[in-house]
């Protein structure tokens, strides 16, 4: 029961200023990577930024990121008891950590 998942997560405000940091997360069978990220916020660092609205229901489609180089939802990717690399979407503008600008331009704040 004491298995560990090591998440190597991108931290930083843009793609040139930042680095991957490692976090050890207690592993339980059946968990998602999103569960792991939420655990880190509660137990290690509440400033870790990522998007999600629904929780593991794959309804809001907000938690898309790059996990081990694959573009995928964190809520449907199983956490595994090994090192996993979690980064922001490579083809979108980075806002902070794992958050990218994924809204269509007409659904973003545009003020004079």
């Amino acid at each position, binding site marked *: 029961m004491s298995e560990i998942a090591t998440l190597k997560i991108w931290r930083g*405000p843009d793609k040139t200023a930042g680095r991957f940091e490692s976090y050890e997360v207690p592993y*339980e*069978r*059946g*968990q*998602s990577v999103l569960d792991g990220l*939420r655990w880190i*916020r*509660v*137990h290690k660092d*509440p*400033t*870790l*930024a990522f*998007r*999600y*609205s*629904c*929780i*593991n*229901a*794959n*309804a*809001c*489609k*907000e938690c898309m990121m790059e996990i081990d180089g694959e573009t995928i*939802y964190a*809520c*449907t990717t*199983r956490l595994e008891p090994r090192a996993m690399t979690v980064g922001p979407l490579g083809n979108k503008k980075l*806002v*902070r*950590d794992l*958050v990218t*600008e*994924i*809204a269509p331009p*007409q*659904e*973003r*704040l*545009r*003020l004079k």
Partner: protein
Amino acid sequence: MTEPLRAETDVLVIGSGAAGMYAAIEAARAGCHVMLIDRSLIGRGGATVMAQMTVAVALGSETPDHWSHHYHDTLAAGRGLCNESLAQLLCEEGPACIEEMDAWGVGWARKDGRITAAFAPGHDRPRCVYVDFLNTGPAVSKTLRSVVNKTAGIDRAGDLCVVDLTKSDGTVTGAAAWHVGSGAPVVISAKATIVATGGLTRLYRRNSGSANMGGDGYAICLRAGAPLIDMEFVQFFPIGHLAPRLIGMDPIMWDPFRYKLGGRLLNGRMEEFTQNYGVPEDGRYIITRDVGTYAILKEVEAGRGSPHGGAYLSFQHCSEATLREAFGPVIDRLEKNYIDLTKMPIEVAPIAHYHMGGVAANARMETDVPGLLVAGEAVGGANGANRLSGNAITEALVFGRQAGRTAAARVKAMRAPVPPDARETLDLLRGEERKDAPNTAEMLQALQATMADDVGPLRTQAKLERALSHIGELDAALGARPFGVAEPFDLTRLDWLDLRNMVMVARVVAQAALLRTESRGAHQREDLPGMLPEWRVNQVARLKDGRIEISRMPAAPIEVAAQ
């Protein structure tokens, strides 16, 4: 801090679930300029997208029906506390909204060319339309979002979290917000403001809503002087998924399974038990949400729960072919979660699902404060002490459309907007970073634990008093100045702003629950069982000098006998 960004519009709509989007469409169709904002992304979060199946409406396309029958069932489910005019609006206008959604291509399930309806507990006939498979909420969200896109005059902005409504001379004049995406303050001036922010499911550890529904709309309306009603009535959905661990699926997914396939609810000894609580199901799905929740929790309390502390739900009477015909690709998704329903029951337990309480409003969706309207789950009163299955999406559509209409009428009667006074909020957002700030994510979890353990479906005076004491401690730890910094996506700042609202709303729920010295619908006091005639009253909460005051008003004279 730099000067705030400023915007001006006719109608500001806060929240982009079904209610907010329908309101925006309706106001824009009437010629208004609309600004539709959401704290997350437009049309993705909230409760709508999480709806699995049923939308109650007296369409009469298969079985003859009339809105008055739907109305009768809504009032009966509400245990004598429904606001009649809101319930009537919901039932009477439901068909028109459902037909308009159909014309917009939502894709209601059909049989022989007619929109088909499922039977759901509490209804006197099949009345619930849906989109297959388990796709009602996403289809409703997507359809409305594409209509919003095509409708001229609706500006949209996501990642915009409203901190407070602005007021001048007793009138709401718009809102002051924190742009999560940039960390900048934003002031929006509006002739009419519609709060469509959904409910408060996030106050509870296990819930079926989105993570962005922490009762923020209730808090901003309360601070703007609008009263809240029926806040003690939180609906728990009895058969939320509990075990084995399931990802990529909504926890309320077993509702549609029961609509289509019946299913058997069993205790830890694999015995049927609902008959001991007055509802023999015999393979049908007829138990209402309040009774189902009570029955499961009582079995657990008596030591007859399932291993994870709930009940078993079995579809083992169904063949693989039956399951596939009813739920197609969902069966494959279950397989990926190592669940084979022909071979095993799953475990279910009550999960926070919906809030009957909310902002007091009339049937035009106007609150007590001029310029402030509400729509959808944010509105209190339509469903009394217990909501009928399927009424949530219907009320989102109907109340949204009505709020859009009323807002448009107000805009036409006004010449110029009143300049908003946002000084207080701007000053709040100017706060310096607190180096010793506690972990906000941990505080949020602590609040959810307190609410789940002590302000859940089964309550006592001792539990509620303990909860109020914990809530007070969290409030003190939160303090008056925000944590975090004015930078893009600082989640500690967002959490602080959320906690400020959540703590206030949690206190209202617990206080109202403590004052209601009886058991009714979703509010069950273990120390005070039984429904009392003298408690056929609605409780109304107001904020006065920073304190919550709760008063009583007699419920509408309802002909329907409360169960």
